[in-house]
């Protein structure tokens, strides 16, 4: 028997239903992974080439992705789309604090992006593409995330 999704607290669903409800995310992830490989967004060469201004390729990918996403969001707003169940949209203005975290964290992330030639999406994609050392990349990124979590209260935000 199916009850109204809107009447239930979020995620408080039967396990079997929960698994089925995850399938769209698996499908969208698969599409993303295929794009990362087939358009060479996950390629170390492409990423270094971008930072050397030697190709428009990745700039084109990022700019057209932002444009498509931005137009889609504007369209959703124009037709008055709202999440089911009266929830607030997951896209909310980011907490600004002193604003330091975005610049400092951004530069540290960028240093890692340039050194490794990969960001998190491509790391998962390279693992799928059969690069065994991508597993080490993901472990290192996990260690970095863990270190941030442990040091968080001592870092300027």
């Amino acid at each position, binding site marked *: 028997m199916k009850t109204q999704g809107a009447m239930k607290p979020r995620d408080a669903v039967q396990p079997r239903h929960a698994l089925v409800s995850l399938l769209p*995310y*698996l499908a*969208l*992830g*698969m*599409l993303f*992974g*295929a*794009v990362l*490989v*087939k*358009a060479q967004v*996950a390629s*170390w*060469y492409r990423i*270094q*080439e971008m*930072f050397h201004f030697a190709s428009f390729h*990745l700039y084109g*990918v990022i*700019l*057209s992705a932002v444009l*498509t*996403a*931005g137009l*889609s*969001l504007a369209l*959703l707003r124009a037709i008055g789309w709202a999440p089911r169940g009266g929830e607030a949209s997951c896209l909310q*203005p980011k907490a600004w604090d002193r*604003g330091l975290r*975005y610049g*400092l*964290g*951004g530069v*540290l*992330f*960028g*240093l*890692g*992006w340039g*050194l*490794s*030639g990969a*960001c*998190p*999406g491509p790391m*998962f*994609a390279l*693992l799928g*593409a059969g*690069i*065994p*050392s*991508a597993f080490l*990349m993901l472990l*290192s990124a*996990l260690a970095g*995330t863990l*270190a941030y*979590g442990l040091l968080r209260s001592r870092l300027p935000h």
Partner: protein
Amino acid sequence: MDSLLELLRQPWPWYVAGPLIGLLVPALLVIGNRPFGVSANLRHLCAMLPTRADFFRYDWRRSGLWNLTFAAGIVLGAALATFLLPSGLPVQLDAGFQAQLESYGLLTPLTESTAPGFALVPEALFRWSALSTLGGWLTLVVGSFLVGFGARYAGGCTSGHAITGLADRQLASLVAVLGFFAGGLLASRWLLPWALGGGFTP
């Protein structure tokens, strides 16, 4: 049908890839009010560990299971694309840049025995024996560590800030993305070439 498969096997141009990636933002929003972003998965994976840090004490199943499923999809989709739709071609780079990379031994010659995924990355930095070189360590350990650290510090990565945040016109994301590129330019044009013993700027 054959010609469609043949078309899919070719490298996909940016004007196909970009819009497809951009459409993930409204798709995730409409399906389940979820924000497109990959690096939060690293936090969810840490939240599975028994740590004392408040940052990792939350119900990762409730807030992150959808995203971990999305990440599993990335691995699976990448595997299908690599092994079912291989182009068999090396990445077509700018000629000058390619010559520079070649002089540093960073171009993997594709042979019959090359695993198809290795068309995307230089074996010199990504095979296990690269861990005996500074370049391999910077790629697989130090750089990747900074990706994980910086993504959480900045509150997002290329997908969360550069795509979702910019599309949502968030000032914080613009600052983060400027930081991404500042750090990336520094690392790619100066740090890595220095570590590899020279410069590969065209």
